[in-house]
């Protein structure tokens, strides 16, 4: 059962990762007993499973994910939302208001209009139909303050860190509220624009250097340096 790379080696699509009694994990595929990579990324051997941590991906919705989206269309019974994914999401009117929805009475554009940014949660998705969203939970709904930045969805786990270690440091050091959407859109809201600016710089740095080690220390260092300059 040979493996052909070391942990955290960079691999490209088509690279033969392992042969024999292994299971194909994320971003890999199996032909007979051979496991190949299907994306550019870092290989990860975990017991019998072979994963590739991709360096760039697009967002595929999954139930329970927190996402940031933009209203692009108002329909009869709800809204169409761009969630930075290959699929446009639907937000039903009944998932946005707390009383029964009456099309003849309720004006949807007064609740959410085209161009509004929302924080939402995915409640259903199976690839045959567009994902469904909800904003009927605390913390969800229209975003009225702060800034939104876009990163590759592949870097989201790195920005959150192991058990939220990275994101907690960011929140503490920059004094900002940071909400990370799984779709690669991040909402940053601080007490003043300077704090937000530092947080954005830090997130951009994490995105750029996601595949390097010792990143947490460098981020802390960078933030304190930026603070000193400002």
């Amino acid at each position, binding site marked *: 059962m040979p493996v052909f790379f070391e942990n955290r080696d960079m691999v490209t699509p088509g690279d033969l990762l392992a042969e024999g009694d292994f299971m194909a994990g994320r971003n890999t595929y199996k*032909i007979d007993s051979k496991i190949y990579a299907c994306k550019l990324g870092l290989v990860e051997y975990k017991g019998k499973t072979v994963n590739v941590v991709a360096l760039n991906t697009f967002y595929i919705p999954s139930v329970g994910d927190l996402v940031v989206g933009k209203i692009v269309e108002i329909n009869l019974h709800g809204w169409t939302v761009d969630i930075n994914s290959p699929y446009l999401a639907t937000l039903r009117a009944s998932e946005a208001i707390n009383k029964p929805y009456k099309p003849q009475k309720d004006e949807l554009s007064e609740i959410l209009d085209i161009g509004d940014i929302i924080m939402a949660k995915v409640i259903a998705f199976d690839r045959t139909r567009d994902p469904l969203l909800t904003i009927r939970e605390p913390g969800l709904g229209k975003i009225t303050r702060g800034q939104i930045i876009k990163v590759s969805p592949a870097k989201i786990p790195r920005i959150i860190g192991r058990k939220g270690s990275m994101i907690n440091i960011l929140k503490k050091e920059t004094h900002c509220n940071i909400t990370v959407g799984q779709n690669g859109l991040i909402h940053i809201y601080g007490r003043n624009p300077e704090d937000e600016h530092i947080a954005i710089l830090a997130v951009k740095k994490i995105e750029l250097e996601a595949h390097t080690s010792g990143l947490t220390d460098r981020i802390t260092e960078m933030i304190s340096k930026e603070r000193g300059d400002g």
Partner: protein
Amino acid sequence: MSKKIQLVDENGIRTDGRRPKELRPIKLEIGVLSNADGSAYIEQGKNKILAAVYGPREVHPRHLALPDRAILRCRYHMAPFSVQERKSPAPSRREVELSKVIREALEPAIFLELTPRTSIDLFIEVLQADGGTRTAGVTVASLALADAGIPMRDLVAACAAGKADGYIVLDLNDIEDKEGTADVPVAYMPSLNAVGLLQMDGQLTPEEFEEAFNLALEGCKKIYELQKKALKEKYLAIKESVEEAVEEK
């Protein structure tokens, strides 16, 4: 009748100074366009080609979407200034055909079934042409797809071989393509040992064809190594600069 041009001289050297079984110098780069989801650029000899990938994304017009897989749409286009005589920017018969063969060379490499009802749009823009643009187009397009994070079975490398002045030669340039006896473009996925494109233009004996085909496969394997290196380079450069900065402290 025009005067016969000598393509390979008595020392076995070709018009651009190469030996018969030598590739042109290749430069590859990924992530060159910030607005595309994935992009790549190739310089192969005097060829200069840009590729951009958008998607997977919503299909417009909607009726083209397939319920069980994504569609790959490909546009091969030559810039008006890419050749000696100005080329009309409207898509010619040749460009429509090349768009199709490039699409069909890449389709088997992509896991289209993972994103049903979407489209992956691929644009190949030839900025300067010097023979072998369809193969260079495939090479650069597969890099752009990988850069976009689209799941692929393998990278596709492509290269042509042919016959000029009685020699079987690798990677024909424009003059060898036009004045030579035959041209065999091949697109190949080395890890899977699968051929995605095989064409022949001109006349070859079965033995010569086999020799040219095998030579083209060898060329593809060399290009494949360059592709892998180019993909990793962008990220390794960042890693190195970070590590240097750490060491300085």
